């Protein structure tokens, strides 16, 4: 989204300049008649995904409940103003013998959400796909895309290089390393690089503050570890922070998707978005993506940083773990992130048990020597690990060793679980 973000940001710059130069007055707001309906399509074909989907909805014309606008994550959710009852098909025109059929019908599994059968249509790099949507009123929406391929994608850190898709994690010093990317594809237009933090439960974070994306109109590019996300988020957040685990995804996109993310309609002229659909506005594009896990570490810039061995008994569990702690900045009050490894404790239906958090990334903060760390971790139930436990680690830091109080921060208040001893390694 960076290109569009640049556009938005430059628009913002324009707005700043306008604020300097335009001592204009706001006009009184008036009600106007409802607008005209325009159909909206969002569909990105993914040969690396089992099921494809197409979103079909109406534009907003002044007849929408504002409360409905807070709908995100499509699918599984439906769009705000779904268009139901359409016949949606996708065909691979370069593969007439597609065992899925010459025109794969996408079923409407939720209002406005049309999903294809598993592994259909069959598609490979360079194939031309055709979208056809027959609307209940007889109108037809059409679009085409070329399926992209991602032959290989590599990232090189300070010490080693890994291919995307590897099960290994890349250890990356954000303060001193620069990532070098190389993406090879015979079919594709643009590279999108996305960082998303893995949350406490091993899932991708849903917070927009934990996510950054960049577009690169080239196959080779770099990213210094200290890169800030100034265009998407604009708040000066680091793309990666030491002490955190990320999933880094590289995606090769087609030209339709490239135009979709880089363009937008100007608020004043109503023009600017590059549309390749016939009968609708939106995107019918193609992407192939490949992930890689990154553990971000950093240089020690404050004596409070470092790896501490935590030992002792908490909730009846003998703990022997390490906490690798990094500060966001070397200031008296500072945010911290840390990796927790070793023998830790986990809440189960049978009580507290030893548990290996496998490098769980946790957050906290210092105010002078006093710290507080929140450990959000899964609890083990009969149905497997589920979110539910929040432990609070508090104490007063000292150079060599200090005590760490462990509390179960439940809904009924904090319950002391014990105290651990932290010794700097």
């Amino acid at each position, binding site marked *: 989204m960076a290109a569009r973000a640049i556009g938005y940001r430059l628009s913002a710059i324009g707005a700043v300049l306008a604020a300097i*130069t335009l001592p204009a007055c706001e006009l009184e707001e008036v009600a*106007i008649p409802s*607008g005209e309906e325009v159909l909206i399509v969002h569909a990105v074909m993914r040969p690396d995904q089992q099921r494809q989907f197409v979103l079909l909805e109406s534009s907003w014309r002044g007849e929408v409940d504002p409360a409905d606008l807070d709908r995100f994550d499509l699918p599984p959710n439906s769009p705000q103003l779904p268009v139901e009852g359409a016949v949606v098909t996708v065909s691979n025109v370069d593969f007439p013998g597609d065992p899925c059929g010459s025109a794969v019908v996408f079923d409407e599994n939720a209002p406005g959400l049309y999903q294809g059968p598993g592994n259909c249509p069959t598609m490979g790099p360079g194939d031309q796909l055709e979208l056809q949507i027959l609307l209940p009123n007889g109108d037809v929406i059409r679009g085409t895309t070329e399926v992209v391929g991602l032959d290989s994608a590599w990232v090189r850190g300070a010490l080693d290089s890994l291919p995307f898709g590897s099960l290994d994690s890349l250890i990356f010093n954000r303060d001193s390393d620069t990532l070098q990317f190389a993406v090879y594809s015979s079919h594709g237009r643009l590279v999108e690089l996305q960082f998303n933090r893995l949350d406490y439960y091993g899932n991708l974070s849903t917070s927009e503050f934990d996510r950054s994306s960049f577009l690169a109109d080239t196959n080779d590019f770099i990213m210094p570890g200290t890169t800030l996300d100034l265009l998407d988020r604009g708040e000066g957040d680091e793309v990666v922070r030491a002490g955190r685990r990320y999933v880094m995804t590289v995606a090769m996109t087609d030209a339709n998707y490239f135009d979709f993310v880089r363009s937008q309609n100007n608020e004043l002229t109503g023009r600017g978005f590059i549309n390749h659909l016939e009968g609708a506005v939106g995107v019918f594009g193609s992407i192939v993506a490949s992930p890689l896990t990154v553990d971000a570490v950093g240089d020690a810039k404050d004596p409070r940083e470092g790896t501490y061995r935590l030992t002792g008994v908490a909730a009846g569990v003998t703990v022997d773990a390490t906490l690798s702690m990094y500060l966001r900045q070397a200031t008296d009050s500072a945010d911290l992130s840390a990796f927790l490894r070793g023998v830790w404790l986990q809440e189960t239906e049978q009580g507290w048990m030893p548990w290996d958090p496998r490098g769980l990334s946790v957050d906290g903060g210092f105010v002078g020597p006093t710290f507080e760390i929140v450990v959000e971790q899964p609890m083990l139930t009969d149905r497997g690990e589920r979110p539910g436990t929040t432990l609070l680690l508090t104490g007063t830091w000292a150079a060599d060793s200090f005590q760490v109080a462990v509390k179960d921060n439940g809904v009924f208040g904090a319950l002391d679980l014990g105290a651990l001893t932290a010794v700097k390694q």
Partner: protein
Amino acid sequence: MTPRFAALASLRIIPILAGFCLVGTGASAQTRDVAGRVLAADDSTALPGVRITVLETGLQVSSDAEGSFTLRGVPTSALRLALERVGVRQDTVDLPAGITTITVYVGVTAVQIRPLITTAESPNRERFEAEAQPSTVTLQPREISAVPTIGEPDVLRVVQLLPGTVAKNDFTSTLNVRGGESDQNLVLLDGITLFNPYHVGGMFSTFDNAAINTVDFTAGAFSAAYPGRLSSVLDVSLRQGRNDRIGINAMLSGLSAKLLVEGPIPGTAATFMIGGRRSYADRWVDAFTDESFLYYFGDLTAKLSLPLPTDGVISLVGYAGRDVGSTPWLSESSGQEPVDLEFDWGNTVAGLYFEQPIGNWWVSQRVNVTRFTTGIGLVPDVFDARNKTTLWSAATNVGAQLGTHRVQVGGSLEPYTFTYRAERPQLETVVLDQAWAPTVWGVYAEDQWNVAPWLFVRPGIRGEYVEGTGRMTWAPRLSAKAFVTENFAINGSIGRFYQPIHSIRDQELPVSFFEFWIGADSVTPIGRSDQGVLGVEVWPRDDWSFSVEGYTKSYEDIVMRDRADDPKVQGDEFFITRGYSWGVDVLVRKHFGPLTGWVAYSYAKSLRRLGSLSFAPGHDRRHTVDVVLQTPGPFGSQLGLRWGYGSPLPYTGIIGSWPHRRYNSQENQFDDFESEVLSASINDQRFPPYHRLDASIRWELGTNVKWRPFFQVVNVYNRQNVFFYTYDFTGTPARRGGFSQLPIVPTLGVEVEW
């Protein structure tokens, strides 16, 4: 008035006995050529159109736009010169024997109230009598300063009030002339092209009114001597510095503080003028508030003039202007290295001009360089975008008065360079890297043939070869003027015009900061326009004129921004459009006397075609009325009034909005969106009519040092002219808001002149 100045004013003649005056001028032993200038006694401004008669021989010449004149082949004996012009006190002066250079100071007779309103508009009358050139209006600094506006006198703001021009709104100084786009105007500063002559994103022009001699605005059918534009020529000439003493002009306005110094260079015949100005809002905010206002603009204008002993002249002109802004994007308190948003833009120009008369012939040579640069970036190293536009030009002109023919031929070389580069240094990725570099070779020939005292004909032709296109264009032009009486003439012109450079700025945006230029190449076309003008010009009295002109223009190969262009591909940045415009311009003008000013009315219709799509361009205003008046006010003041009316301008209606969703490739879902407007057909709606009244009051106090305080009010009755609309379709019902153009804005200022 200083005793010295009073003496000058009373003598009105200063023979300049510089050493070079005895240098041979090519004349024979019995005759000589005399180069002279006519200046106003009260402020040394150049007086054009003054008729100088050698009483002993009857030879007559007129002073040009810079007050200069040349008497050729007059006897070397002592002579008497008679000077006359409407608005100038008739007088005779001595021309001593052997003198070849003379400066004459004359009184301005129309000074009934203040010099602010007094100059006669003889350049317009002179042109009426002598030129087969329609569609031209000359403005002088005093007229410009008398028009109320924001801050300080502004050339472009006044030109916007002339017939044939449309200003889209209060926030732009750009001109749309007779249906043309704003990139179709050739803007010259003392003969040097300016690409974006604006400050504050187009709100104010770059010209310092105190440095200006005259402004000639030609709305169409211009001479073949002017290169490379389709619609108009705005020729702003700088005045020479005064040659009698150091003069100072300073102004403090609501916009800027400025200072101009001029005078002779001791020991030479050369004069200098240098003026600078700077906005001060940033300093004001810094000094008196806890806030930061990190934006300013400034410019510097300079001219060095050297009369040559051979009656020629060399002048050197320089201009540098800059708008600079910076604002914190990421503060130090974030714990990160601070990041600032920085932007700047501006023009830098320099020009060397040489002119030499040789008998009835003259030759001139000009070498110029003009550069416009702009940049915006998140520094350090996050994002950087730069545009650089450069034109080196060299032009040679040769002219001669051959009986009833005034012939002019010339050639020019114009290598342009336009570069655009945007990058993200941190990622070592280049977002955009494109360049155009057309080189234009031009030749022209033009002859004004006074077929009879009542009929002038001016055929001309301009040829241009644009390297990279392989094209040689020929643009024939023909103008004619027929006098029905000595005060009533019919004039007309037809011609073809070419433009090898274009702006790909979205011309439909209501305001823009500057043009983005590209040049013709193998895929970028050369714009073309065929034009015809027919009208009458009447001078019922010496101080009144009336003109009506109808025109028609066609446009071929005009480019329009294509936002779907691929940044990796050069040549897909635009659509090619065509179109036409036609209309009628009316100008009634009172040139001098207690009440001066003009009433301008324009009727215009324009259309553009893009494939099968036809639409009105954003400046398609059917009716435009501008009334500009200056008249004596109470307590010795001078009042200025301006009222303008504009019929509705087109805009693109918004019919709804859509969720432009964000795709998360990691989750394979659309997890966020931006609300974005949807439009119907381009420019299918019209804003309400525009009208606005501005007023100013000025005084002139003091004698030796003149103080000129002024107070101006823009939009006196606070009309809410629509600037743009905003829409919200995310509720029930849909709602429309927006912003108005300038509200009522009072400004104060004072000018000091010594």
